[in-house]
């Protein structure tokens, strides 16, 4: 039974990854057709140039080595070469090669470590955020489950009724067309109150902060997520994809 469930999960993950691949190729076609642009922050350019600095030096060195040698310099080096002992030259040559190789390896390691540190920082930030919410005794937890058609979707909502803010972890939701977004609803009694919108990252898990909801005077007991026009609507109009109560 466990084996069957594992096979089912692997099939779902494979389909999810194939969907992401398809979405990325579609996005590439759109980007190449429309030329849609978003200016990246200036510091990214700086990081790219810094990270390629070492490799650039090597390229320049290779280019210089490929250029025709200066005849006067060549004669001078030849004279020096005769004067110096062959053993010394070989020793320095070997040392130079070793040092270059070490330097290149060190650069690669630094780049790799920087990536790891960045990834770890992100994970620590996520974990800290979650821990801060979980430590707060006022925070209530609700688990939301998918309905027919989105049965693999899951979400966990941490809700602070005092600050009227929340944080939602959602996964398994299908990607939406650009003109649609998911909308979170908080139920006060039987009345749904809009509590923020979010987009799904092509079916992958998504962490969504829910900003302060001034219109929520009473603590909600039930939550739901529906598919709505981009930007959200005051009352639900689309299909409910997730629902659950706090406990």
């Amino acid at each position, binding site marked *: 039974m466990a084996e069957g469930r594992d096979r089912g999960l*692997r099939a779902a993950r494979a389909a999810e*990854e194939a*969907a992401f691949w398809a979405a990325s*190729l579609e996005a590439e076609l759109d*980007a190449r057709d429309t030329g849609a642009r978003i200016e990246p922050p200036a510091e*990214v350019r700086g990081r*790219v140039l810094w990270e390629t600095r070492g490799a650039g030096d090597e390229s320049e060195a290779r280019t210089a080595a490929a250029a025709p040698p200066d005849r006067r310099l060549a004669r001078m080096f030849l004279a020096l070469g005769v004067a110096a002992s062959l053993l010394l030259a070989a020793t320095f040559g070997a040392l130079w090669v070793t040092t270059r190789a070490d330097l290149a390896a060190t650069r690669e390691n630094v780049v790799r470590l920087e990536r790891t540190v960045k990834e770890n920082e992100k994970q620590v930030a996520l974990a800290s955020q979650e821990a801060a919410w979980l430590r707060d005794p006022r925070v209530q937890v609700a688990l939301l489950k998918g309905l027919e058609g989105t049965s*693999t979707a899951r979400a966990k909502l941490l809700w602070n009724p005092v600050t009227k803010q929340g944080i939602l972890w959602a996964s398994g939701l299908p990607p939406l067309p650009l003109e649609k977004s998911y909308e979170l609803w908080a139920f006060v009694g039987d009345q749904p109150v809009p509590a923020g919108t979010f987009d799904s990252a092509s079916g992958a*898990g998504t962490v969504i902060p829910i900003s302060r909801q001034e219109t929520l005077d009473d603590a909600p007991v039930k939550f739901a997520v529906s598919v709505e026009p981009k930007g959200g609507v005051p009352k639900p109009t689309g299909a409910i994809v997730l629902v659950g109560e706090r406990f």
Partner: protein
Amino acid sequence: MDDTGADLLARIVAGDRDAFGAFYDLHAPVLFGFCVRILRDARDAEDVLQETFVQAWREARRFDAARASVRGWLFTIARSRALDRWRSRRSVEKRITSADAPDLERAAGAAGEASSADVRDFVERSLAQLGENERAVLRLAYFEGCTQEEIAERLVEPLGTVKSRTRSALAKLRTIAANAQKEAGRG
């Protein structure tokens, strides 16, 4: 074929760092827009953009103008790096989500993770459900990593025809994938 930036790339191969700066300025905004759209996270998009250009610098001499346009080549790198980032992010988020969901989510740990063979197998089976023309373009795109220009050349078809065929095939593949996810959820 669109050869925007090809002259800059030739200078980059020679180690010209000014050319690399101009190359970044030329292509980064379109690639960043693409990364933001598929990753839906500005910080991840920045990281992927950075990785894309660093890889482009290191592998500039491998670029073959006969196989792809400069922009197509850059997009191929960016999509590959974005997929890596998506997998990594999914792994982190899955761990957080499963922290106190005892049944299904926790079971979806290492044991439920799809291997690349699973994904290839899924795509292979999905392609069998497409028409011959659509199957041909997606097979070249997925299994051989061909750009749209390469596919057009291999199939001896106009680039526009290949693009529209690819779009249609991708829409069907996404529907098949969505149905497969639902099916797995029921099973």
